[in-house]
C-alpha cells in the first residue's frame, strides 16, 4: 500500500520543520572546519590525508589528459551537450544554426569565454568555458565546499574543501545566467562538465519569450572565492564578483503549422479550452494552448498535458497567466501531426482527468 501514502504524508510535513533541518545543514558549514581541524591533529588522519594527496595528484594528471582528448574530439560542444537519451541528437537543422562566439571576461582568479550559441524564437543555448588560475580549485556556483568530488565527476575522495585545503588552493565557484527580464525567460537550466579541477564547461539552456531577428544581450557571470578552512557561513552578496559578457545572436524564425480548435471546450473541469497552435522551430514543435479558467480550484488539480503521437522534451508549463487567462506552452516536440490532435489532461498523480480532440482550423 503504503508507499504512496508514506510519500504523500512526507510531502505534508510542515515547512517550518523542514526549514529547521535545512538550517541545521547550513549550520554544519560553520562547525565543519573545527571538526576537521581536530581531525588533522590525529596522526592516522594525517597519514590518510597525505596518501589521498598523492592519489589526487595522479588523478589530476589523468583528468588533464582526458580534458585534452575531450577537446580534440569536441565532446563538449553545444551540439554534443544538447543530446541526451530522452530527446536524442540535436536536429540537423538546429545544428546548422550554432554560432561561434568570442565573448570573454577576466575576473579575479578565473576567466570565462563564451564558446557557442544557438538561438531561435523560443530557446537560447550557450556553452561557456571557465578556467581557474593556478591556486584555485574551480566548481560551478550550484556546488558548495561540502560537495563530494565524486558527485561532480572529479576523481578522488572527500569534499571540495578538503581537496582544496590539501593542495593549499582556494575554492572558486563560478556560475552563468542570462538576463531573465531582458529575454523574458520562462526557465533556465545550467549543466556542468568538469574537464579538470581548474576547468569546466557550462551549458545553459533557457526558454525565452522575447523575440527579435538579432538578440543583443549579455551573459552574466558570478564568481565567489572561498578560503578552505576559513569558511564564512554568512552569505555575503558583496563578496561576489559580477561580470557581464556581451552577446549577439541571430535568432532563427519559426513557422506556423496550424491552429486547432477543441471539439468539447468545456470537457475539462475548471477550464474553457481555447485555441491550440503549433509552430515549428529548428529544435522541434512548439505547442501553445489558451483557455479561460472557470474554476481555479478544479484547474489547480491539473499538472500537465499529453498529446497523442507527440513527445515534448523542452521546457513545458501550464497555468494561469498574470492577466487571468490560461496558457500552456510546451517546446521541442517530436512526432507526427495530423488534422486532429488527441490531448489528455493529467492531474498531479499523472492520472488523466479528461481527453479532448482538437481539430485543425480551416
Amino acid at each position: 500500500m503504503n508507499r504512496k501514502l508514506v510519500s504523500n504524508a512526507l510531502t505534508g510535513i510542515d515547512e517550518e520543520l523542514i526549514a529547521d533541518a535545512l538550517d541545521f545543514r547550513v549550520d554544519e558549514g560553520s562547525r565543519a572546519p573545527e571538526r576537521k581541524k581536530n581531525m588533522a591533529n590525529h596522526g592516522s588522519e594525517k597519514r590518510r590525508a597525505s596518501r589521498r594527496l598523492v592519489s589526487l595528484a595522479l588523478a589530476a594528471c589523468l583528468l588533464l589528459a582526458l580534458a585534452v582528448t575531450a577537446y580534440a574530439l569536441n565532446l563538449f560542444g553545444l551540439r554534443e551537450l544538447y543530446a541526451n537519451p530522452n530527446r536524442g541528437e540535436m536536429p540537423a537543422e538546429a545544428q546548422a544554426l550554432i554560432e561561434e562566439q568570442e565573448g570573454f571576461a577576466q575576473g579575479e582568479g578565473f576567466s570565462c569565454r563564451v564558446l557557442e550559441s544557438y538561438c531561435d524564437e523560443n530557446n537560447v543555448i550557450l556553452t561557456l568555458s571557465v578556467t581557474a588560475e593556478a591556486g584555485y580549485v574551480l566548481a560551478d556556483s550550484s556546488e558548495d565546499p561540502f560537495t563530494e568530488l565524486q558527485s561532480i565527476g572529479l576523481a578522488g575522495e572527500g569534499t571540495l574543501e578538503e581537496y582544496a585545503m590539501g593542495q593549499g588552493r582556494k575554492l572558486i565557484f563560478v556560475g552563468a545566467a542570462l538576463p531573465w527580464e531582458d529575454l523574458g525567460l520562462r526557465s533556465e537550466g545550467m549543466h556542468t562538465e568538469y574537464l579538470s579541477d581548474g576547468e569546466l564547461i557550462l551549458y545553459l539552456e533557457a526558454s525565452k519569450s522575447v523575440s527579435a531577428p538579432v538578440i543583443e544581450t549579455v551573459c552574466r557571470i558570478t564568481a565567489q572565492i572561498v578560503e578552505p578552512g576559513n569558511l564564512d557561513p554568512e552569505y555575503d552578496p558583496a563578496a561576489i564578483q559580477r561580470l557581464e559578457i556581451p552577446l549577439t545572436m541571430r535568432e532563427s524564425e519559426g513557422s506556423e503549422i496550424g491552429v486547432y480548435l477543441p471539439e468539447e471546450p468545456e470537457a475539462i473541469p475548471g477550464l474553457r479550452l481555447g485555441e491550440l497552435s503549433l509552430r515549428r522551430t529548428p529544435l522541434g514543435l512548439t505547442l501553445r494552448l489558451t483557455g479561460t479558467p472557470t474554476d481555479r480550484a478544479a484547474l489547480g488539480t491539473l499538472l500537465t498535458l499529453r498529446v497523442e503521437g507527440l513527445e515534448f522534451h523542452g521546457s513545458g508549463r501550464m497555468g494561469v497567466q498574470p492577466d487571468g487567462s490560461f496558457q500552456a506552452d510546451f517546446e521541442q516536440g517530436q512526432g507526427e501531426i495530423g488534422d486532429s490532435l488527441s490531448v489528455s489532461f493529467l492531474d498531479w498523480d499523472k492520472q488523466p482527468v479528461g481527453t479532448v480532440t482538437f481539430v485543425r482550423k480551416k
Partner: protein
Amino acid sequence: MQDEEIVALFLERSEQAIEELNRKYGGQIRRVADHVLRDPEDAEECASDACLQVWNSIPPRQPSHLGAYACKIARNLAINRYRSNSAQKRNTLYDVALDELEETVPALSTVETEAEARELADYVNRFLRGLEREDRVLFLRRYWFGDSLSEIAASTGRKPHALSVRLFRLRQKLQDYLKKEGMMA
C-alpha cells in the same frame, strides 16, 4: 542575504531574486531532487523548474521559510517526474528511505488516500515536534531530504551504523506514537 530580502526581490519581480535563491539554496534544491531521481540531468531540470515555480508563485505567496519552500517544490517535482518514469529502477535514496518508513506506518484502506496522507502527515508533524532537535533533523534528513547515511555521518561525525540504529529506534518510536494515537491497531 536574508530570506526576507530575497523574497522582497521576488515581489519586486527582480531577476536577481532567482540568482540569489540559486546561490543560497541552489545546492540544496538540486540535492533534494537528485536524491529522488539519482540523475544529475533530471535533477538539474527539476531544480530549474522549481526556481521557476518559486518565481511564478511569489507573489501572491510570501513564504516565511524560502529554502524549505523551494526544496519542497523541487522534491514534489522530482517525485512527479520519478513516478512518471515507470522504467526507473527502484534504487534511489528516495526509495531506500521509503522502504524503511513503509513498514513503520499503518496499512490503511486504499480509498481516500489523499485524506489519509494528510491525516498521517499531521501525526508525523506532531511526532516530529515532540522529538529532540537532533533526532528530528536526523529523521528529516534521512526521510525527507533523502540524505544517505554516509552523507549524514560525514557531516555529523557519527558512524553510519550508529545512525542506522538511531533511525531504527526513531521508526519504532513513530510506530508506537501512531498506535497510541489510534492510527494503527
